[in-house]
């Protein structure tokens, strides 16, 4: 073998690679509108749990209701609905519509989909959304398997009747969440868990899935059988997946992406990007907080927890660390929820903090057992934790240790209650304060603080059954006051912000709703003639 033949072999090899490359081709550049998304874990509405999947599902499927830009539920597949005087029976009247394969969509599709969501064998992460339905929670927990005892009926093809165990005034909100979308029984029975794959999937929303490549993207085309297809301006859209902010930002800057959320905003560039016209920061329905493990000394003493809370200066954190439109938190429930007035914590009060710690038996921090703040691996959490550590040092003269764990280890540790303080956050599933507060009941698996208060449990029960919005708001406020203010089980730090980049001289309908869902139904180019 001589050098010349070695080189020609190498060149031949390189030439052979080219067909292999074309086999991996995506058509991301061809879509009308291209947006950033994390890789969805599933496109099955019955199994979805996170925002990445929910955003795609909300554009592939349509439930009984859809949310408008203010998250108010509007008619979707249901053209109207009535609620009985006792708030227990909801009757939905469905419009005539079909699946993307032309099969008519009926109320029985909804009944079947919701029973599937509740079926314990489905193991849905979102089944609790339907626990207000009569017999649903028991069915979901496997305590009975009689679907006729679950209050979901389809008396005719265009009517769905839902009987609730107790009033759920926000039930229409729930009907607009991705998990309550209908799923195509015929495809699921034919294709099993492969039914969400391109070529297999049938959907009923404004778009159909035509291609998907893991860790690359999803390609959507307008569903010409969608009931309101004339209102859909985009003929196609691509969800480009990527989890590295710098790479995503580069793609946005070079015109390969039309829209990115915070996943395309490198933290190091925030100060620069904030000044640009395509920077859009708005409030997000989510709160960053710390959990206190109330079973462990010294955090089993409410005064110690309150002292830690009163030492936190959230304003410094949003000004110097997060810097992208976040707001220091004075409550757990974010402020922009209509019909609910959140509590007002007194904020950064060093004097009060020192007094509380002294009352708990630790004047000047002396004798206080060691406290550790547990965070998951991220530069962002690390920086916030270090500022908090400094604030506690300056205010209370105590040393809080920071412990860092990889994500899965962190969630497992918190679940087992093996921590003192742990960072946490909560993102609303729908626009309702109850969503932030019911997790603090003794039975909630999301509580994870050891906190258990009979009075709070009964308030949570009462609020779930209260039909009058004003009275319910008062009950919820009382829960928040007790859990956050009086017991200081959680220490709010800041409210999240949505930070999107897009050019609104080119696109309309991209103004984010408080859950940053990106509803493609609303997106249209300002200059259609200049579309790709």
């Amino acid at each position, binding site marked *: *073998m*001589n050098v010349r033949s070695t080189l020609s072999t190498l060149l031949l090899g390189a030439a052979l690679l080219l067909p292999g490359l074309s086999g991996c081709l995506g058509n991301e550049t061809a879509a009308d509108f291209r947006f950033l998304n994390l890789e969805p874990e599933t496109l099955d509405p019955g199994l979805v749990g996170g925002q990445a999947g929910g955003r795609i599902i909300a554009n592939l499927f349509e439930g009984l209701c859809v949310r408008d830009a203010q998250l108010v539920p509007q008619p979707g597949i249901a053209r109207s609905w009535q609620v009985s005087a006792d708030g227990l029976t909801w009757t939905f009247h469905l419009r005539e519509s079909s699946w993307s394969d032309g099969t008519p969509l009926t109320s029985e599709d909804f009944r079947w989909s919701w029973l599937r969501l509740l079926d314990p064998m489905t193991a849905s992460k979102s089944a609790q959304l339907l626990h207000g339905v009569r017999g649903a929670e028991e069915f979901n927990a496997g305590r009975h398997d009689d679907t006729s005892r679950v209050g979901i009926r389809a008396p005719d093809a265009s009517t769905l009747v839902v009987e609730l165990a107790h009033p759920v005034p926000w039930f229409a909100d729930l009907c607009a969440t991705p998990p309550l979308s209908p799923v195509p029984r015929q495809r699921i029975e034919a294709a099993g868990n492969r039914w969400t794959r391109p070529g297999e999937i049938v959907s009923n929303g404004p778009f159909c899935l035509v291609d998907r490549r893991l860790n690359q993207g999803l390609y959507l085309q307008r569903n010409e059988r969608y009931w309101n297809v004339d209102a859909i301006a985009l003929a196609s859209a691509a969800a480009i997946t990527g989890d590295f902010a710098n790479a995503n930002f580069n793609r946005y800057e070079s015109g390969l992406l039309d829209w990115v959320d915070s996943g395309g905003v490198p933290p190091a560039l925030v100060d620069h990007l904030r000044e640009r016209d395509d920077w859009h920061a708005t409030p997000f329905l989510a709160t960053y907080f710390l959990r206190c493990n109330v079973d462990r000394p010294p955090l089993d003493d409410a005064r110690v927890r309150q002292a830690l809370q009163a030492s936190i200066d959230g304003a410094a954190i949003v000004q110097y660390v997060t810097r992208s439109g976040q707001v220091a938190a004075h409550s757990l429930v974010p402020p922009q929820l209509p019909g609910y007035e959140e509590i007002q914590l007194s904020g950064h009060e060093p004097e009060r903090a020192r007094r509380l710690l002294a009352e708990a038996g630790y004047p000047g921090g002396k004798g206080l057992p060691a406290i550790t703040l547990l965070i998951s691996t991220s530069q962002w959490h690390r920086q916030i934790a270090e500022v908090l550590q400094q604030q506690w040092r300056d205010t209370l003269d105590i040393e809080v240790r920071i412990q860092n764990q990889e994500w*899965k280890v962190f969630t497992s540790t918190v679940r087992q209650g093996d921590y003192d303080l742990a960072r946490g956050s909560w993102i609303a599933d729908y626009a309702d304060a109850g969503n932030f507060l019911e997790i603090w009941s003794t039975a909630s698996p999301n509580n994870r603080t050891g906190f258990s208060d009979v009075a709070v449990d009964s308030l949570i029960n009462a609020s779930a059954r209260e039909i009058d919005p004003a009275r319910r708001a008062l009950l919820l406020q009382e829960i928040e006051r007790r859990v956050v203010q009086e017991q200081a089980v959680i220490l709010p730090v800041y409210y999240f912000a949505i930070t999107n980049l897009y050019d609104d001289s080119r696109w309309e309908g991209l103004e984010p709703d408080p859950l940053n869902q990106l509803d493609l139904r609303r997106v249209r180019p300002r200059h259609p003639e200049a579309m790709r």
Partner: protein
Amino acid sequence: MSSYLLRRAATTVPLLLAIVVISFLFMRMAPGGPFDLDQELDPVVRANLEAHYGLDQPLLTQLGLYLRGLLAGDLGPSFKYTGYGVREILAQAAPVSFVLGATALFIALLLGIPLGTLAALHHNQRGDRLASAVALVGICVPNFVLGPLLVLVFVFQFGWLPVGGWGSPAQVILPAFTLGAIRAAYVARLTRTGMLDVLGQDFVRTARAKGLRERSVVLRHVLRIGLLPVLQYLGPASASILVGSVVVERIFSVPGLGSFFINAALNRDYTLAMGSVLIYSMLLIALNLLVDLLSRVLDPRVKLQ
């Protein structure tokens, strides 16, 4: 040769088995599991999921079931990507990594061998010092610096190349160069050392004494033997290009094996992580074997044992 191949194949099976068993046990010993999520699962849901994926069985039973599946060519379903099997995920990602890795290796050889040859032929002269300096810079500049630097210049400054993604030949150039540059530097140094060793040997002097042209001496006799260290390096280098491409994959949004592997490990996607370990192990074993065989072809003095 054939008995050598048989012997190698016979040692490969127990080696792979040991790798699978050890990785399986290590994976399960790591704290946290695939269903430890941000929002805590209802205990009933968790139990159903664990039963569905067989995680409720004793560990050794799970290992047995996994090995039985392996024998039938079944790598199991992914825990994270619902509805996708590990085999098809790997089948999608492996060609991407292969194209990227092979191009990077090609660039490494294309740049490294001439640079090393040049340095050896101008030993201790200006050309040698220049080539060595270039190689040193190549070794010292890490991926995560070189990648963004190339993006800045070739994407944003000149607009010649796409910023990332995967699909067109143009999208391969920057990630492959980033990945190949360090290896090019190593290849240059190895070529230089290998050639210097050979240049001083008797058979080279004999070749020159017989009046062969210098070009023939270098290309036909010196380079052939001088490249042996490079060849030995290519086995582990190919493997490290495939495994170590995760940084480059992230910088250029390339959907290759590296990102799947890292994410699978972080997400406790047990089956996908195991599948990735398996594919990497097989690649490493196959590449090492290939290198041993090629060494023998290049230099008949090499004994296959």
